[in-house]
């Protein structure tokens, strides 16, 4: 399922992390599924065991997997999608409140859309100058 490319300039632990996340997104790995142990995976892919351990530690830090001592690594309760939907739901509430307030002040739908676009553009320009 995983196949990092040692010859690419991207660190192998990052490739492995992305491949685990991708496997979760595509449903190849689901919540509660066990990932291969560090040793068997290192041996199967012929990569450094410390690299596998690092990828697993980082994935645990990101909340994607859970390391149960002695038992191995398990995919957590679909942490990624859940966080995303939670964030969007909270954002939607903020936008709804702002739109209601603007409408109450007589700002039209088209004008609201323009205001949002302009605000986003302003953010992008600022980001460019910073970078």
């Amino acid at each position, binding site marked *: 399922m995983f196949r990092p490319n*040692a*010859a*690419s*300039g*991207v*660190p*192998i*632990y*990052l490739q492995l992390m992305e491949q685990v996340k991708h496997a979760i997104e595509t449903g190849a790995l689901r919540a509660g599924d066990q990932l291969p142990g*560090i*040793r068997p995976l*290192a*041996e199967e892919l*012929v*990569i*450094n*065991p*410390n*690299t596998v351990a*690092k990828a697993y530690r980082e994935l645990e830090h990101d909340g994607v997997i859970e390391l149960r001592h002695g038992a191995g690594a398990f995919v957590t309760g679909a942490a990624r999608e859940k966080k995303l939907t939670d964030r969007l739901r909270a954002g939607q509430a903020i936008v709804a409140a702002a739109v209601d307030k603007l409408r109450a002040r007589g700002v039209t739908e088209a004008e609201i859309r323009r205001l949002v676009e302009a605000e986003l553009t302003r953010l992008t320009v600022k980001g460019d100058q910073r970078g």
Partner: protein
Amino acid sequence: MADGFVIETADLRKTYDGIDALRGLTVSVPTGSIYGFLGRTGAGKTTTIKILLGMARPTAGRASVFGLPAHSPTASVDIRRRTGFVGDEKGLYDAMTVRGMIRHTASFYPQWSRELEEQYLRRFDLGAERGIKTLSRGMRTKLALLLALCRGADLLVLDEPTTGLDPAATEDVLQALVGHAADHGTTVFFSSHQLTDVEQIADHVAIIDRGRTAVTGALDDLRQNYRRIQLVFDGDAPAYTFQVKGVERVKRSGRVMTVLSSAGIDGVLGEARQLNPVSTDSAPVTLKDIFLDTVAVED
């Protein structure tokens, strides 16, 4: 082990008959790492290994293994007892059988593991009753590796272990090393001029060039920090010396300037802005690129 490093050298120098084999080599090999020691043939890899194992004395500088001074004959006995070594010669006796060679070697090591011995005999498909002189090059390497792995060593030192092996035998050897390191936490120090082997299994590397350390570090850090930045100009690329840290190499060709940075892109791009390039672009670089750009091509 001092500071978590199994092997440490500082400004190591070695002169043979007026020829400088080592001209200031500094490496630190972290405990538990798989350390790739990269360099072209004649860069000083074997000389370094000989000094570490007490087979040659440094002209100047310091080398220690397990915190013990490598140049001291008494310390060297201890170092070699705790180290599995696979050299170019492999140290095999042609008159013996595989089994005979194994029993002979095992008699020197009280911590010898019969269990691992059986495991690697099967895994490498060596054939215990075969005569050593009938073994192929790949088989000889595998037997030498078995002898190094079964003695319960804390450190494995391998001098060009995959040279001359076909891809399948190379994969067998690398896989055994990775598995062994994972099971036993053994530190592996291996020299190679095969970039692909090093890229695949090492977590730390040193690139050495003509007896000196050119690049050292964690391989992932190198992958993360080395970038090639391309600047395109309206006219010919200006002759310019960067002040920012981490600029390893600058090449100019017509309207294009290519900068190899070991410290990411921000510093270089920031400084390059005053040169008014019409476009900038950056890309990660492979270990091969780093190797070719830091090791002198001309002799």
